[in-house]
């Protein structure tokens, strides 16, 4: 899992892209529940997460990162490599 500080940073990125209150982002936050989470904002979010954490996601990974939970798990995997 990622640390608490990284989780806050990840929520902040999602909050800015999807215009959400960071405190409302949790394990249930996903593309099918967030109105602004469309294909364009998804790519924008991926770019921002990659920049924020200095990681790179493959095209296959990008297409699966459609929820906060999946992002958190994928990020944890990247940061421990």
């Amino acid at each position, binding site marked *: 899992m990622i640390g608490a500080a990284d989780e806050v940073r990840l929520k902040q990125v999602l909050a800015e892209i999807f215009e959400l209150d960071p405190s409302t982002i949790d394990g249930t936050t996903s593309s099918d529940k967030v109105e602004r989470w*469309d*294909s*364009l*904002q998804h*790519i*924008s979010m*991926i*770019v921002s997460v*990659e*920049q924020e954490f200095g990681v*790179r*996601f493959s*095209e296959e990974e*990008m297409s699966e990162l459609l929820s906060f939970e999946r992002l958190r798990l994928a990020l944890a995997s990247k940061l421990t490599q």
Partner: protein
Amino acid sequence: MTPAEHGPDLTFHHLGVACYEIQAELASWLVLGYRPEAEPFADPAQGIRGLFLSGGGPRIELLEALPGSSVLEPWLRGGTKIYHHCYETYDLEGESQRLRGFGAAVAKPAIPAAAFGGRRVSFLMLPAKYLIELLESETISAGQARG
């Protein structure tokens, strides 16, 4: 020699303009002196119909969604009309990798494009959130077709 020394392998090709209806948008470009280069084309693989225009400024590609496609909806909803820059390259994979190294994300992997006789295009979003289309050079495509 690195790209920094001789410059990137990118030649400007056109600006992509998202429209609800090409015909409705066209009048505003005609008054600026632009003219259609050919008839509109449809690209079901990308979910769009397009029309290239030439005039006193950069080449323009007007784009509307095909029925059932929502590919342009995020841009139109956000009020963004000029939404991508297209650059031609002899090395689609190499330039894509170079931009990835700069922090860009692949928005759409390389696919053949109806507008360019099957030449491949791919889309990447730069860290500054500009959407870039890379178009494979005609020479490279012809070479690949010959095997």
